[in-house]
């Protein structure tokens, strides 16, 4: 190579090739006179290429990533690992929205349940499943919390290396590295220097340990917090709200921000022993009384005539939304914020059930009952909630409390799970499935026995009525996820294709059989899933 270094020699070859040997003759030692220049160039390039490849050396290593923190949860049993692989493989499938879905279970819908069960039992995610798990959590926000908990510290570590999984890092640093609530020094430092999400998590953990310490922490920096942060902090007090929070909330009633004031008032009214609740009770008692002059006991209502400064300070919003009378608007807010325990004493020692049954004069009934419903939800009062729900067999439109299914679902949520399941079971037996979806959504999984039975019976009736199963696909989907797997054997009877009934929709029978087979196979699969995780 007569003195040229290999690098510049190669550069000359490349330049010559790029421009063409006609325009740029290769170096003389590559193509001696008489030899075809392009051929000689290719010869030299071939030698150089093979030599370069054969002499490749490793590159210098870049700085290593910090190793993932250890995860001492136990390893999944082998069958459960296989199940997870199958559930994650099905993830990308399009969501089955109504229509015909065949007889095979919809595995995507079972992933949340699987994750919850695996988390309850304290299993660690297999490392090789983490990317698929993070992808699943990225695509479905409802999976995020359980998937990230299952993915654990290594999942968070991995997410830090891939911009697509950034979502996993939001707010999680708090979950992993909160100081112990007793460590006052560290708590104070994080409270003063931490990010907002970290501080909310810190407040929660300190409050759970010692409510007074939490309130003290909050009071300390309160005046300097921004209005939207104050609102969020206040909102986070809902969890574990107790009488210890009253002094702090009372001060917040005179906050600069109207939203903060309203939230503080709402929280205080959920504490029946608070001074605010007492003031509200006094106001409401002046408006609602027993009319003893009537032949039968009747509730008389005298709605407030004005919204004074005191009411406003206690969180009553003075301006009514358009289309609502001012006075009924104010009345609703007073009753909603009044401790429900006030009423039996005020209304002749009657029980909630008796009170709800009393006639109300001058068409105030709807307004009053609606306000009691909101109060029962806010104050988590199961006795009143049960009374306001009325008998499940009563048609929704004529029920005592409310005809709105959303409100009823909220009332149901305050009841004990068995009572809840029993009430919804009664509702379904009386009214069928067409309005049950929202109510079923608040029932505990797996469904208690009477509820499961009621749903299966109602599906059976719907099938006999000859309609198509996809009118009930919402309930069917819920049943697949929530029915007790023990129901599978009873359902087996329904998977047969019935004879075409007079007046039935054509082919409905075989579609029903298909839907029931899917239900049965999903229940069996869920039973297997849980068995695998328990082994």
């Amino acid at each position: 190579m007569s003195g040229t270094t290999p690098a510049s020699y190669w550069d000359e070859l490349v330049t010559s090739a790029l421009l063409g040997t006609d325009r740029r003759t290769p170096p003389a030692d590559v193509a001696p006179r008489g030899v075809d220049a392009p051929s000689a160039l290719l010869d030299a390039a071939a030698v150089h290429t093979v030599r370069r490849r054969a002499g490749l050396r490793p590159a210098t290593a870049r700085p290593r990533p910090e190793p993932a923190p250890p995860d001492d949860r136990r390893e999944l049993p082998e069958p459960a690992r296989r199940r997870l692989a199958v559930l994650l493989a099905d993830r990308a499938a399009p969501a089955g929205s109504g229509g015909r879905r065949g007889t095979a279970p919809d595995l995507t819908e079972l992933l949340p349940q699987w994750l919850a069960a695996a988390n309850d039992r304290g299993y660690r995610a297999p490392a090789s499943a983490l990317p698929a798990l993070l992808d699943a959590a990225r695509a479905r926000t409802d999976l995020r919390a359980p998937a990230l908990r299952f993915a654990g510290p290594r999942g968070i570590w991995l997410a830090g290396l891939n911009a697509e999984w950034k979502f996993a890092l939001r707010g999680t640093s708090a979950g992993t590295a909160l100081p112990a609530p007793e460590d006052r020094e560290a708590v104070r430092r994080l409270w003063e220097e931490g990010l907002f999400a970290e501080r909310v998590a810190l407040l929660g953990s300190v409050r759970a340990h010692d409510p007074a310490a939490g309130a003290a922490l909050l009071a300390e920096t309160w005046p300097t917090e921004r209005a939207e942060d104050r609102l969020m902090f206040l909102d986070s007090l809902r969890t574990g709200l107790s009488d210890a929070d009253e002094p702090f909330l009372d001060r917040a009633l005179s906050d600069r921000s109207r939203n903060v004031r309203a939230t503080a008032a709402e929280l205080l009214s959920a504490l029946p022993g608070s001074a605010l609740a007492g003031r509200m009770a006094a106001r409401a008692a002046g408006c609602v009384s027993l009319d003893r002059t009537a032949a039968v006991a009747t509730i008389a209502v005298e709605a407030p005539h004005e919204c004074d400064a005191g009411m406003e300070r206690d969180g009553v919003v003075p301006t009514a939304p358009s289309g609502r009378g001012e006075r009924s608007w104010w009345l609703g807010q007073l009753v909603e914020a009044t401790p429900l325990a006030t009423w039996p004493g005020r209304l002749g020692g009657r029980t909630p059930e008796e009170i709800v049954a009393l006639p109300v004069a001058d068409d105030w009934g709807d307004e009053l009952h609606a306000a009691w419903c909101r109060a029962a939800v806010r104050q988590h009062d199961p006795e009143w909630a049960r009374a306001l729900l009325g008998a499940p067999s009563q048609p929704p439109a004529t029920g005592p409390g409310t005809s709105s299914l959303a409100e009823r679902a909220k009332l149901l949520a305050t009841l004990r799970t068995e009572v809840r399941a029993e009430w919804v079971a009664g509702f379904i037996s009386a009214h069928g499935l067409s309005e049950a979806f929202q109510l079923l959504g608040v029932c505990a999984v797996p469904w208690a026995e009477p509820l499961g039975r009621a749903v299966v019976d109602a599906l059976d009736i719907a099938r006999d009525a000859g309609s198509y199963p996809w009118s009930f696909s919402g309930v069917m989907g819920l049943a697949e996820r929530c029915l007790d797997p023990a129901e599978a054997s009873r359902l087996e009877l329904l998977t047969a294709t019935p004879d075409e009934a007079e007046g039935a929709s054509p082919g409905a029978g075989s579609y029903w059989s298909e839907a029931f087979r899917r239900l049965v196979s999903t229940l069996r699969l869920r039973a297997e899933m849980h068995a695998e995780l328990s082994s």
Partner: protein
Amino acid sequence: MNQQGVRWTAEQVLDLAPDAASRRAGSRLGTAGPWSETGGSGAGAVWGLCKGSGSRPYATVVDTSGPAYKCSCPSRKFPCKHALGLLLLWAGDEGTVPEAAAPGWAEEWLAGRRTRERRQEDRAADGGQSPRTADPVAARRRAERRAARITAGAAELEQRLTDLLRGGLAAAERSGYGPWEETAARMVDAQAPGLAARVRELGAIPGSGQGWPVRLLEESALVHLLDRAWLGMDRLPDSLAATVRTRVGLTAPAEGPAVRDDWLVLAQYDSADARLTTRRIWLYGRRTGRTALLLSFGAAGRAPQLALPPGLMIDAEIVPHAGAGQLRAELREQFGAPVPIEAPPPGGSTEDALAAYGTALGDDPWLDSWPVTLTDVIPVPSDDGWQLADARRPQALPIAPTAPSRAGLWRLVALSGGGPVTVFGECGHRGFAPLAAWSAGSPETVTLT
């Protein structure tokens, strides 16, 4: 181990799926619900009836030793979702696929397979003469005619390359892909598919990002080298001549001495172009220390027939193809059922890996990469992609941009967790393409393809 040999894992079954849609459809059928009359035999056969949308259930039979599939459904996917579902059921739960005698509909097909296999064995025992080579004179004449065509093609290609260099690579970028496609078609006419494929690759280089002139010069020079080697074949040693013939596209028959070993199935992955799906399966012989490549082809859009789930070990005989540095082999007879592998193959450092590639280039200068196992390496992020760094030395290999899958790279990173892992892959001039990995202290093979 039970009577039916080792059951596969769900991952291994799902790896057999020809595409993502089949994978999903198959995994939904992997539950007892739609199945009836399921059973399996000690010889590795599994069967079952799957209720579909019609009144008659589909009859599905799988011979897991092949594996080979038979299903009465009209699907053109291979294996179909019913076969995948059945295998998942078999893999998942021992109770749902009990040991049984094959019913008539399954036995018919299984018996047919056994007869065919026996016939093949008989033929092999008769001296391996296949009927096509019955007339050696005619065969030789055909081979000579083809060699003459290839020689003409190689000369033409050589002319095309010198024209390219004379006019300059910069001009080639302006003229676009058309002339390359035309030259590739000429090479197909010359019955030199190896040259045609290389020409197509050359055509894709101009304008393919920074440094393309260097890549085009390198690859052109290697095509030139292959041309010259073919044209001067009579002066080459036998083994190199065999390699050149293979590279040009004259596939040497697999007729080397058979090698029986416990073969670890390290990786299986498919690559597809408009015409063909090519499946590569890497094997490592535990006793011989030999690495072998099984190739299998399918028409475009269809999965090739041969499938071996990575992570298993098979006691089998393979027959290598001729040619120096050639890893390709054919799978012949399998003995007994596969078992899970107990440990990853032995490996070395990143430096060892590049040295192995360098040595292999001495036998076959056209090699793009060489199969190696790296022991104790850590995936490390760098500015342009990832590296695999030695755990105890400041050296690293870049992960090739051509690595088969992004999801695989992240599985590798997750498995490592910042600590050392063992990785099998293809190491070459473009970097290292990881195909399978093992974490410290676990024999479980994590596929990265």
